[in-house]
């Protein structure tokens, strides 16, 4: 047994002339909190989707918990939890109905679903529909839906985007807790303070490639700058992105 939770080798994906992912290799250790950083259009989300097995790579391989993520493998899917960029909720259902529905897709009991709702502090909102939840509450529900089957490996795509500072900090505590329980967590984010605080290691991406991988503190030291944001700007430049 290897203790690599994720092994990615030579991943490539192109759309027409655009090389969305252009030779990404990385390894995430079991129990690690790993961040994928990059400006808009850097290929973070496509990379994450290739790793999750949502898309077929043109080249390269992805192994999650020792198993290939493509083609689709239900036995592997039972062991990973995914939160997609936008909140994927069913129409017209309350928070409790949402999480119980997701739970049943994984063969998890309604009691366990209700307990998960409690964990993310949404028991008081159990009978509220997703459209009436605040941004932070919706994100917590979305994460709860990703965690309801107790996955070993969790993917979160920009979980804190659009949240106010209180909701972000509240969510950070939740993410730390998830990682603290021994789960491997991979997240993408725009916020460097968040990555610096939460992640054991980060990969900085641009133009479909991984520019640098390391512990935030090591990267800051290596480049002789004040914080991870400066590392990011140094690596990816200052010009505007789409």
């Amino acid at each position, binding site marked *: 047994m290897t203790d690599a939770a994720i092994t990615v080798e030579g991943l490539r994906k192109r759309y027409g002339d655009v090389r969305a992912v252009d030779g990404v290799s990385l390894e995430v250790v079991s129990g690690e909190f790993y961040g994928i950083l990059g400006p808009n259009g850097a290929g973070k989300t496509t990379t994450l989707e290739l790793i*999750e*097995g*949502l898309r077929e790579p043109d080249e390269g391989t992805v192994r999650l918990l020792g198993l290939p993520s493509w083609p*689709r493998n*239900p*036995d592997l*899917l*039972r062991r*990973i939890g*995914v939160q*997609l*960029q*936008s*909140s*994927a*909720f*069913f*129409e*017209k*259902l309350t928070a409790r*109905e949402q999480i*119980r*529905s*997701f739970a*049943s*897709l*994984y063969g998890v009991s309604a009691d366990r679903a209700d307990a998960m709702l409690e964990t993310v502090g949404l028991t008081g909102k159990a009978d509220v529909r997703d459209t009436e939840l605040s941004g932070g509450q919706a994100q917590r529900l979305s994460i709860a839906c990703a965690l309801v089957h107790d996955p070993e490996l969790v993917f979160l795509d920009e979980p804190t985007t659009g949240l106010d500072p209180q909701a972000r900090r509240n969510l950070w505590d939740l993410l730390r807790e998830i990682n603290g329980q021994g789960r491997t967590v991979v997240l993408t984010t725009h916020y460097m303070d968040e990555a610096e605080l939460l992640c054991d290691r980060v990969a900085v991406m641009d133009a479909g490639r991984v520019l640098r991988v390391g512990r935030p503190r090591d990267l800051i030291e290596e480049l002789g700058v004040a914080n991870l944001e400066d590392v990011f700007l140094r690596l990816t430049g200052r010009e505007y992105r789409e």
Partner: protein
Amino acid sequence: MSALSSLSKVMFLGLIRDRTAVFFMLVLPLLFLVLFGALFQGEGGSRSTVVQYGEVTVLDELDEEHLAALSEALVLERTGDREDALERLRAGEVDAVVWEETPGTLELRYSAADEARAGAVRGLVNSLVQDANVAATGQPPAFRMSTERVEDESIRAIQFLAPGLLGWAIAMGASFMSAFTLVNWRRKRLLRRLWLAPIRPGAVVGARIGVSLGLAMAQLVLFLAVAVIPFYGLRLTDMWWLSIPLVACGTLAFMAVGLLIGAVTSTEEAANGVLQAVIMPMAFLSGSFFPTEVMPGWLEPIARLLPLKHLNEALMGVLSRGEGWGTALPVMGGLLLFAAVVAAIAARLFRWEAK
């Protein structure tokens, strides 16, 4: 709960909590049936009302048998107030007023508001006068007419409306639901999310088909329940239950139409627009709202290509005309073939992401 039953529950709740969807798929078609059924109820079988003032020989001398035959076509009222009778005629309450001005001269006043009824009343009274004339000669009539009614050609409004509106309701419900599930789940990335859940794709498809079939059967039951109440008076024929497999096949055919439209549109609004543009003209051409005989002839070959036309006709056949397997089977086969072809095209055009 299994994935199939929990996805079915999710789709069912999503439907019944959507008031707009419930209104357009269940309430509106039923309202149409209730309203149109009541509006056209009198048509065809209705009798004209004729008011007789004073003594009218040709009417007064009719024997029992002739009176009974006459009463099938008109209601005869007698009055002693001619001005009041004429006033009622002008108000449209009665169809004609008749009196004998001088012995042997009948005066008939009728309203021109309803050409068909006016013609019927004129013809009836005239034939009574001619019969009396022939009888007065003491000779046997030189010409006779023998008539016989052909049952099949006379359709009461409800026999036509119930199958037609039901077909429309099925087409609308099935196509809207499958298009909306596809577009909504793609836009919210639920399709992606479900791809990453350990379920079989068949569970999603099966749940969608199951819930749509359930709704279609609810529509069938509601329609028949309304149509058979005595006020509307649909009399079901022995083979009415063939409407169940017909409705099921129709549901699959229109789910495929919805999938195709869902595959090529990105938002619920766009899907709704395209669905309206497809389903409404098809319903008109297929005779869901009024008989297609009134349409110009060149539309007929176009209508023949529409699945709803065949569904409507087959439903009318098994519900109202006593037709059986011979009518239902070819249409069921055709609808299933149509469903397979359209679903295959939809699968080819399917996209995971909205444009």
